């Protein structure tokens, strides 16, 4: 029976967050209540774990670092098929960069118990550093493969995976326990089901804070982050925009003319 940990990041709903802009006058972000959702690539990570569970049997623990409201993200993961959820929440965790985040998650995995595979999405929609997976691996002294698109051999403790690489992919042999970060091509996540949601009622969600993890304050959150943001600036655009006018036909004619003048049509 595999012990699997899936790291899930709560992110502002990308379909709404992508529209967020810095106010050019106040130079700050407008405060919007964008609902938190499961980072899209982490859904693929969770699905990879669930498929292994269906095939071979596994105990899936979901880790999620976020504000208390991220508890519904954990519950959703349980409804999708995870067995246990840990919500890492503490004001001390705020402001964490990838390093501090990875450290906190790694310590949690350590404290949680033995693990065979740690799955993460390869990147988050709101940070997209792609680093938390490899950094967790380093802190836990585990091998890691990033950008995995297919698990070719998943039995025993030596797996074979395919990972995206320049103009193609690389075939990688991996000794468990290990960390695997996945791309969206690895699978198609299943949707929530009503019975899954009901089954989640009986599953455990615990909340851990810094004290429970036993990590010193200077290693988490902003304090534990080697990097931090010093400035947010609004970018002025230097292009003069001409919005084409007229009927559909007139706009098409004008655009064809523009393309022709530019030498491409």
């Amino acid at each position, binding site marked *: 029976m595999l012990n699997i940990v899936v790291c899930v990041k709560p992110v502002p709903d990308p379909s709404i967050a992508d529209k967020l802009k810095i106010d050019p006058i106040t130079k700050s972000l407008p405060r919007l209540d964008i609902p938190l959702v499961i980072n899209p690539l982490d859904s693929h990570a969770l699905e990879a774990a669930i498929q292994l569970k269906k095939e071979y049997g596994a105990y899936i623990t979901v880790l999620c670092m976020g504000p208390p409201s991220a508890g*519904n993200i954990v519950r959703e993961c349980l*409804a999708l098929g995870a067995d246990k959820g840990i919500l890492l929440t503490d004001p001390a965790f705020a402001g964490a960069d990838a390093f501090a985040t990875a450290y906190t998650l790694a310590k949690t995995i350590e404290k949680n118990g033995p693990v065979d595979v740690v799955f993460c999405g390869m990147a988050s929609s709101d940070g997209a550093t792609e680093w938390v997976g490899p950094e967790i691996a380093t802190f836990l002294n585990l091998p890691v493969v990033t950008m995995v698109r297919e698990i070719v051999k998943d039995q025993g403790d030596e797996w074979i995976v395919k990972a995206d690489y320049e103009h193609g992919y690389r075939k990688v042999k991996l000794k468990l326990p290990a960390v695997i970060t996945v791309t969206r091509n690895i699978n198609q996540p299943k949707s*929530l089901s*009503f*019975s899954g*949601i*009901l089954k*989640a009622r009986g599953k455990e969600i615990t909340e851990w804070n810094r004290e429970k993890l036993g990590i010193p304050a200077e290693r988490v959150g902003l304090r534990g982050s080697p990097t931090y943001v010093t400035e947010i600036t609004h970018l002025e655009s230097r292009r003069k925009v001409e919005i084409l006018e007229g009927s559909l036909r007139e706009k098409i004619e004008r655009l064809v003319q523009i393309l022709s003048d530019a030498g491409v049509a």
Partner: protein
Amino acid sequence: MIDFTFTEEQELFRKAAREFAETKIAPHVPTMEATNRGWDEVVKELAEAEMFAVTIPEEYGGLGMGYVARLIALEEIARVSVATAMMYQVFGLGIEAFIKFGTEEQKKKFLPKFASGERLATVAVTEPSGGSDPKGIRTTYKKVNGVYVLNGRKCFITNSHIADAQVVLAVDEDNPDAFTTFIVEKGVEGFKPTHEEHKVGMRGCNTGEIEMKNVTVAAENVIGGEGKGLKVAMAAIGDVGRGGMVGCALGLQQACLDASIKFSNERILYGKPISNLQAIQFKIAEMKIDLEAGRLLGYRAAAMQDKGERSSNEFAVAKYYTTEAAQKAAKMAVDIHGGYGCMEEFPVTRYLRDSFVLGPSAGTSDIMMVIISRWALS
């Protein structure tokens, strides 16, 4: 203290229902609109998504999720396809008759199969001679040698051609005051769906007539007890039927609002999106107000139902309010779209047509007013 928020679990139900409607039902809508067919596909999807199990108790193979959950599911499905929501809600009416009035044998025999979608239920009350006035029906039954023989015809029955276990209301041939509901199963001799309706809206929702010519029904297929038929019919159509229409209406209103917001943000007139114009803003505000109010009315009644309290009056109010509001919303949405509101490729034209069918279903607005005035004056 009243808590008007949904629980985390209910939010997850909504999320699951929304994803289901958007990914599994939406692709079928164009076919349903164009051909007035396609119900088999969506019924299959509903079954696979465990939709039929929502109100069926766990001990009979259901999920026992309750009526608030049902309303959430209906709202989300109606937002994408009112036709599908309508069929789904009426399947629920049939199921309700069994849950409330079925004997243990009937429950054990039918409910698990309803839950999985293997069998489909519906309720058949309305006839040319009476819908709002169920006592005016002319389908009769006669007890002959321990079995019952039914004769008659029902019209405007949702799922007439697809339901294979129909709860039919009939009047005693010899006693105009005695009504009984019977489970009439497909394949029984003399029973057949006949004419199919072509409705102005909710295309792809199966509506039609059924005919019974000397249909023999065994005593074990009487549901609710002989002579208790009106109670069964009214309970099914009452709370659950009205509640179902609330779901259909709320979903349609949300769709109208979403389409209006999208269009008014994109349509440029006088150099700016028309969402900048007060006339448009006020229409959108009206839709929003009705939606907020309708939701509160609907979920209040459903919450009472979940607690086991009597909720028919509250549902009458909700049904009246939301179905009327949906018709207004659809017209406003079409108006906001201007000329485009008459073009079939814009979904608002479908919303307008769908809205017409909301009113007379599960009791007309006038009947709702009769019930509500009775409640107020009592």
